[in-house]
């Protein structure tokens, strides 16, 4: 008994420590799951957040004048004539009518940069469909350019407005105007701009230093040159920014500095230079004021993001704001995202083309992988003698399941395209490659489903005199069908999300028209959803970021649909023995 006592004491002495270790260990486990789920939430959450701007688009609605001289050059109202009309000019005229004092060539180019000329094609089609519109006025809606759209969504430009102090006199001189205040009213803005410029100069200097450092470390001569040039550019910029930091000098504003706009008397002016005493400013007119002279109230409008760091110019920004104030711009649900194919213009780009391509490709994959896979599974599970060949096939299938997908792409490129001469970028070839990739998944899951059918069923069938084939096809296969179907659908969902092998066979092509859904669609160049996501994600335009996220949501939606069908089938038909 005493011995037992001491053992118990020994056990109890260590107990607290052991229980702490136990709790710690359990916490690690829980932490691991929480971490994994947190990643999932972060992944989905960040994509949802990024996709928000893609689902709406700002559209401009303008009264366009369908001048017969422009839209019906031959004057006979025939379709051929209507198709030769200059519809872009029609839109340009309507836009120019909104800002009558814009007349310089370069300014006009900026103004017309607010939309893509591709929109004219839609106006053309409208007129061809309704020839009676010729000569009339017509309210035409078109998406505003992606940069303007993002600006209106507040995603690209930081801006603030403040009421100005005192009176402001507007004195026109040659091309520009001078804005004169009765006190140093521009002082706060000048100070703010100088502070920002100082920060930018610091950043530029840091960039220059970093480039120099990496240039020193680089062995490759070409790269070194590039880095050195970069460093020089950044250094020069920093110098220029510093040069206008002196407090008592005239302040020159350029593309590297925040922009300073003044709204007064219905007009908008873009300030180029603030005088040394901060009471007057040299500016150019963006929108002409109602009259000339003095304004009681004026507003300072500071765009903190410098023009060089954004893709929308000061003037465009002012015009867009003016159009919005006039009620001509509306934020609508972006149907183009779902009905259009790819486009170089983000505001016109949609997923329809890629979606069609995906459907065609997965169709080919399904038609090849499912019958072949199920056939192979039936053979291996039900018919195959246990010999060397079938053993090799088994090992081979298991290994094939773990071969990187890109290797299947290489196979497709070397065999299907280069050796067989099948067309590049075509859903047919893509589907074939994905079928080879999906085959092991289908075989393995089908075999599992066949294996789950109890041998008693086969024995019962054989017992009443059915042949092996009859037993399998009449009894085993129907019972295994739900499992086979589920496995196949999951394999196809995998194929739907696959990218790398399709890059190898050239499905990265830019496809502006969705492929036709007929037979010829299988051999026409196409792209698929994941590849579209890849293409968009590597595009330079910011607006494609949101569209990429939106396309991801569409793809995830498709995959959820696939998996939901698989789960439904499993629940509906699952049988346990």
């Amino acid at each position: 008994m005493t011995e037992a006592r001491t053992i118990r004491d020994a056990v109890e002495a260590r107990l607290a420590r052991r229980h702490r270790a136990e709790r710690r260990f359990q916490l690690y486990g829980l932490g691991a799951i929480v971490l994994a789920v947190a990643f999932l939430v972060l992944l989905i959450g960040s994509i949802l957040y990024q996709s928000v701007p893609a689902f709406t688009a700002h559209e401009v609605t303008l009264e366009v004048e369908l001048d017969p001289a422009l839209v019906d050059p031959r004057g006979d109202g025939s379709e051929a004539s209507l198709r030769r009309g200059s519809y872009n000019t029609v839109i340009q005229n309507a836009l120019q009518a909104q800002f009558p004092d814009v007349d310089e060539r370069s300014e006009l180019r900026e103004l017309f940069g607010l939309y893509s000329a591709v929109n004219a094609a839609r106006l053309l089609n409208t007129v061809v469909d309704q020839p009676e519109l010729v000569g009339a006025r017509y309210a035409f809606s078109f998406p505003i350019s992606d940069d303007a759209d993002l600006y209106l969504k507040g995603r690209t430009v930081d801006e603030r407005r403040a009421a100005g102090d005192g009176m402001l006199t507007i004195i026109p001189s040659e091309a520009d105007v001078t804005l004169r205040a009765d006190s140093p009213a521009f002082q706060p803005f000048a100070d703010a701009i100088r502070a920002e410029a100082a920060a930018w100069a610091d950043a530029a200097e840091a960039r220059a230093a970093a480039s120099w450092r990496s240039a020193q470390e680089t062995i490759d001569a070409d790269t070194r040159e590039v880095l050195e040039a970069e460093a020089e550019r950044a250094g020069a910029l920093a110098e220029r920014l510093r040069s206008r930091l002196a407090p008592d000098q005239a302040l020159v504003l350029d593309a590297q500095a925040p922009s300073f706009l003044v709204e007064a008397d219905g007009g908008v002016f873009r300030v180029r230079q603030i005088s040394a005493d901060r009471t007057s400013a040299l500016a150019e007119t963006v929108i002409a004021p109602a009259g000339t002279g003095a304004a009681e109230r004026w507003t300072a409008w500071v765009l903190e993001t410098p023009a060089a760091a954004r893709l929308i110019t000061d003037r465009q920004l002012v015009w867009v704001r003016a159009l919005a104030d006039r009620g001509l711009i509306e934020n609508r649900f972006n149907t183009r995202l779902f009905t259009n194919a790819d486009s170089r213009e983000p505001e016109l780009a949609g997923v329809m083309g890629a979606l069609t391509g995906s459907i065609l490709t997965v169709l080919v994959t399904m038609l090849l992988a499912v019958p072949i896979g199920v056939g192979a599974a039936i053979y291996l599970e039900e018919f195959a003698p246990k010999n060397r060949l079938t053993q090799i096939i088994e090992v081979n299938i298991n290994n094939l399941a773990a071969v990187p997908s890109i290797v299947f792409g290489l196979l497709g490129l070397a065999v299907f395209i280069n050796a067989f001469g099948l067309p590049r970028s075509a859903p047919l070839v893509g589907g074939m490659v994905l079928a080879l990739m999906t085959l092991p998944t289908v075989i393995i899951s089908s075999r599992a489903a066949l294996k789950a059918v109890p041998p008693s069923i086969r024995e019962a069938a054989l017992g009443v005199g059915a042949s092996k084939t009859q037993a399998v096809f009449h009894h085993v296969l129907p019972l295994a069908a739900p499992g086979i179907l589920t496995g196949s659908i999951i394999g196809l969902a995998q194929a739907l999300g696959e990218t790398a092998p399709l890059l190898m066979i050239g499905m990265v092509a830019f496809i502006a028209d969705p492929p036709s859904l007929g037979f010829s669609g299988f051999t026409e160049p196409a792209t698929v959803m994941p590849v579209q996501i890849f293409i968009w994600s590597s595009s330079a335009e910011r607006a494609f970021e949101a569209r990429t996220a939106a396309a991801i949501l569409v793809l995830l939606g498709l995959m959820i649909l696939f998996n939901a069908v698989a789960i439904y089938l499993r629940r509906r038909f699952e049988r346990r023995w």
Partner: protein
Amino acid sequence: MQISVLVALTLLVLTAVGFLVGRRRALSAADGQPASLHSLPDYYGYYIALWTGAPALFLLAIYGIFGAALVNTLAFGQLERDAAPLIRGYEAALSQDADHQILSGRLDRLNDQIAGLRAELQGGTHSGDVEADVRRLSALTAERNQVQAGLAERRSEVASGIEARTPDTPAGRRALAGFEHWRATPERRELFIADARALAFDEGLASRDTPALRAAAAALQPVERLFQWSAAGAALALAVAGLAFARSRVSRRFRARDRVEGAISAVLLLASIIAILTTVGIVFSLLFESIRFFAAIDWRIHEFLFGTQWSPQIAIRADQVGQSGAFGAVPLFAGTALITLIAMAVAVPVGLFAAIYLSEYAGPGFRAWAKPALEILAGVPTVVYGFFALLTVGPALRDFALFLGYEDAVTQSALSAGLVMGVMIIPFVSSLSDDVINAVPQSLRDGAYAMGATKSETVRQVVLPAALPGIVGAVLLAVSRAVGETMIVVMAAGQGANLTANPLESVTTITVQIVMLLTGDQEFDSAKTLSAFALGLVLFVMTLMLNIIALRVVQRFRERYD
């Protein structure tokens, strides 16, 4: 097209007829006692249908694959024979053309000089100013390219002279077509044939429309028609013969079902052999193209495997000068290893602990939602992970590194790619480990609990050691997965072939380079493009070995506890 559709339809009808004939024949052979037949009457029908349809369709398939090439060879062979006088005239004109003589002389000399200089540079015994020689070499190559261009121009001048003298008669146009076909480079020749076919059979749109092309199209048409008709005739004859043969064999004792079932299992065997053919296809295509690549870099395989300089683009630009050091794949291997290491550092602990928690601690309610959550993580396409790494994780890591005072931080880094890849692999590790942990018999756990071990002691000291081989297998499979993962690294790891162990720099991997080399503009025979296949071969061999070892380890483990 229409003929083949017609033939296919006829074949289908014949097959159906065969089925009916078979049934009828069987029933009549049974003398009104169907039970006396060896098989059900339908099987006799299937048997005859099989003999009717299968051989003919097989013939049509063969024709579909090889027919066009055969027609092209025959038709253009004839055209080139028609062009024989033109070809002779062209060669004679070239041999008399002074400009051409001078240019080809210069080309020969330049080639000699270049070869000599390169041999000297590669010999290793070179003592003089290497850089000057390299510069001279690239100057010489540039000159050679110029001379070659001049030669080509001169040749086409001569050729157009010959073409202009050819009379504009049907025969003349045919000769022109043959001549153009003969003179064209392989790629141009492909295009020429494609255009001619387009004009002849409305297969898509022709890029040009010239008299020569029209003549070629006209030459193609009769040959094509001949082949089409004979293929159709042969197929139909084969179908009828098959029908007749099979019909003759049907009798009461004939074992039709065995034959049909034999055919079915042959088809099934064929289906499973496709899996093997895929592997064979992978191995041979990779090997074949890799051999061409190694031939293009003069069999310096050791430099490919152990060289530390990877810059295939330079090799293209300076025409072979930089080639000696340009295909060293070590930076790619190192980048792959670095990213795989980071991914494993994330995936193995998290995945393993998640599996332990799910199988040993979690209640059924918790498991019911945690497991699907992990499965969702596994189902997300890799391109989505790539996007996530590129736009969320990469910038966040860069900002964090900048905040910590590391100034060279970049968005595309090994760390962000590795981290996100690790997340992608978590469910893979956890589900495999879960299986393995569940395969450890309950009696071992009971033994430990009965000794007074706590749960964590049981897991760490009994379950994990018992499951170790299986877990090792799972990790190896995960490594193979990480090594072969493409999209995340393409989007998030950058492209610079840096040989570095710093996870905050951008690195490149085998898969990234394969994608870079094979997307965009490419000429198929260049060493640059072929190197992608050599990289693919390395990747395949690497993952294959990992898989074989892993599968074997896991299988051993399972056998032990089954």
